[in-house]
């Protein structure tokens, strides 16, 4: 069952073409990795998927919602909102709300976006923090946490809204090997629960251990591929 699909997505910055006519689809519980040279526009592609960036042409379809690049501003922003309710985004820099505690970061979505009662949301927020292994820092401020811890809070924050798709921008770039394995285990269990994910990464080992399909963005084209040097996985 397809949960996320792009049709003919294209984007340029001025004269510079970033990607053109990208169509791909992502099924329930499926992982897809987008790789390619630095500066090719992988993050831009990811940002187009949840409307942080507006594509020039094409569509992004998530469940019943469809972001049409050519839509009028009001229609566009309504579609974006509806897509975002199904899609969680984990930023490369984590981007936690620096003025709120770890627990409040996780509660922000359910309480203020969904409008639920805070007391009703606290137990689930705490169990999410437990799941990502950070429950003991629930009252800390983000700047008191390490990079790896911040990332896990960011994932918990995204999961709090029960997304069907998780978009991850360079999730392993700041993690050492142990932390990467921890992350892989966490994401693997989410995949088994049916969450689909699309990650921008250069990390082949990470991609392989998630069992992800690999797409490569280069020269403004996205093509499904194996790593160009399959042996690289074993040699690393």
């Amino acid at each position, binding site marked *: 069952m397809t949960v996320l699909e792009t049709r003919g997505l294209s984007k340029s910055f001025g004269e510079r073409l970033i990607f053109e006519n990208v169509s791909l689809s992502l099924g329930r519980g499926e992982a897809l990795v987008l790789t390619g040279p630095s500066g090719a526009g992988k993050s831009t592609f990811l940002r187009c998927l949840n409307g*942080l960036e507006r594509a020039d042409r094409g569509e992004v379809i998530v469940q019943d919602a469809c972001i049409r690049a050519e839509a009028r501003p009001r229609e566009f922003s309504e579609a974006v909102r509806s897509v975002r309710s199904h899609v969680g985004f984990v930023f490369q820099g984590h981007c936690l709300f*620096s003025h709120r505690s770890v627990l409040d970061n996780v509660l922000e979505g359910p309480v*203020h976006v969904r409008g639920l009662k805070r007391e009703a949301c606290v137990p689930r927020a705490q169990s999410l923090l437990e799941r990502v292994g950070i429950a003991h820092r629930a009252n800390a401020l983000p700047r008191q946490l390490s990079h790896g811890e911040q990332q896990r809070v960011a994932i918990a*924050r995204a999961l709090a809204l029960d997304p069907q798709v998780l978009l991850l921008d360079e999730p392993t770039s700041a993690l050492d090997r142990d932390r990467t394995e921890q992350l892989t285990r966490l994401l693997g269990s989410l995949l088994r629960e049916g969450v689909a994910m699309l990650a921008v990464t250069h990390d082949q080992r990470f991609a392989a251990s998630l069992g992800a399909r690999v797409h490569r963005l280069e020269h403004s084209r996205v093509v499904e591929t194996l790593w160009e040097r399959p042996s690289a996985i074993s040699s690393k």
Partner: protein
Amino acid sequence: MLSSERAAPSVLATARMYTPLLALFFCLSAACEPAPSSGPRGLARVQAQGVLRWGADIQGGEPYVFEDPQQAGRLLGFEVEIAEALARELGVRAELVQNDWTTLVPSLERGTFDVILNGLEATPARRERIALSRPYYVFQEVLSAREADTRIKDLASLRGLRVGTLANTQAWDMLEPAGAERVPYEGVEEPYLDLVHGRIDAVLLDDVVADRYGQKPGLRTVGSLGTGEYVVGVQRSEPDLLNAIERGLYNLDLSGQLQQILERWQLHGGDPAPSAAALPAAPAPKHASFDLGPHQLLLFLEGAWVTIAISMVAMLIAVLLGMLLALARLPSPYALRRGLAALATVYVEVFRGTPVLLQLYVLYYGLASLVSLDAFTAAALGLGLNYAAYEAEIYRAGIQAVPHGEVEAARAMGMSGALTLRRVVLPHAARFSLPGVANDFISLLKDSSLVSVITVVELTKRMTIAAVDGRSWLLPGILCAALYLVMSYPLSLLARRFERHLGGHKR
């Protein structure tokens, strides 16, 4: 050891607080030193320079001294003609030195000009400080009221009513024992305009002014409450110059020239014959110095309270309106919002790019026929509208400093623009803006002294009145400065605390 370490910063802080005060004290004392005299003095100096420099304020307007509307730079007025005639008697040219009317006496003492010739009233208080000539004009104190207002009949009927006049004049002094609430003006047209608009109940001013500016529809002249004299002021240390002026005025009077000038300007106030002119029924002479009694102190505290009240209301307006302006200027894809942003930008540029004094004049006098605000409201509103432009810029900078990633994270989790603003942008922006806002509050506290131009007696105006009354600028100045410091210092501490707080968060 521990206690002394603790004590040290507070001593330092106290010392820091008093340093500006001491500096001010020394500056003021230096300013009060009489200027060292060199070269000839008195009449000899005037003759040596070939010019009689006379001090006057062109803002006093027609018919005293004013610029020819047909020919900029050319001066007209009965005092211009008297000054020229006097100078001719002395065998020199006349040259006007522009000086604010309220500070004519101290300027004369400092030697900025040779004589004062500008509606200077002969009061016992002035006579104690400078030498006064025979009068060149005897004026009537004319009381004006609205036609429909039958309450006002004489001086006694003014008790408890708001009466407009010029500060530090004979009329100002007459009104105090009468129990009237005195409203000080700096120009001659404005009191009558405010009388028409009902902002005040009566105006007491010289006939010279009342005949020209007080003849407005809806107003009536109640009558004269007494007479007074316009005289020429000369430094006490220059009796020979005074003699020459006296002789000159006598000659002008004898030859009929003085009469001709006054008639040409249609001035018929009283009998200019010096022998007949008795001293006006002025209040008892005051002490020759600024007397810091409980009464005076109370007046200063009252002025300080007005300053605080105006500043607080103005700041509230500025903070709220500034917030709206800053929000209106946020980028948006919608055309309507972009139009609003353009309007907000125009507002900021206009209010920031023109003097607040001008804005106060326009708001209070310029728009009086449309919206008749009372002086306090106009003052608070005028300052508030002006400072809103600055606050808007501070908030805009604060909003720009908000971590962009957090805004995107909020949008990505599905927050609307308004919710993102409330949950992420404003909490950050407020923290970044607070030091700037606190600094602006300090500026506003001091800028509030400008509102005296629209008749509000706040701390600085109170100081000016007391200083001119008591003929001393040193003590009232220090008292006034101390009160400002007492009000602003806690604010600077607060601003510094905000800054430290901000630094702690960023690092």
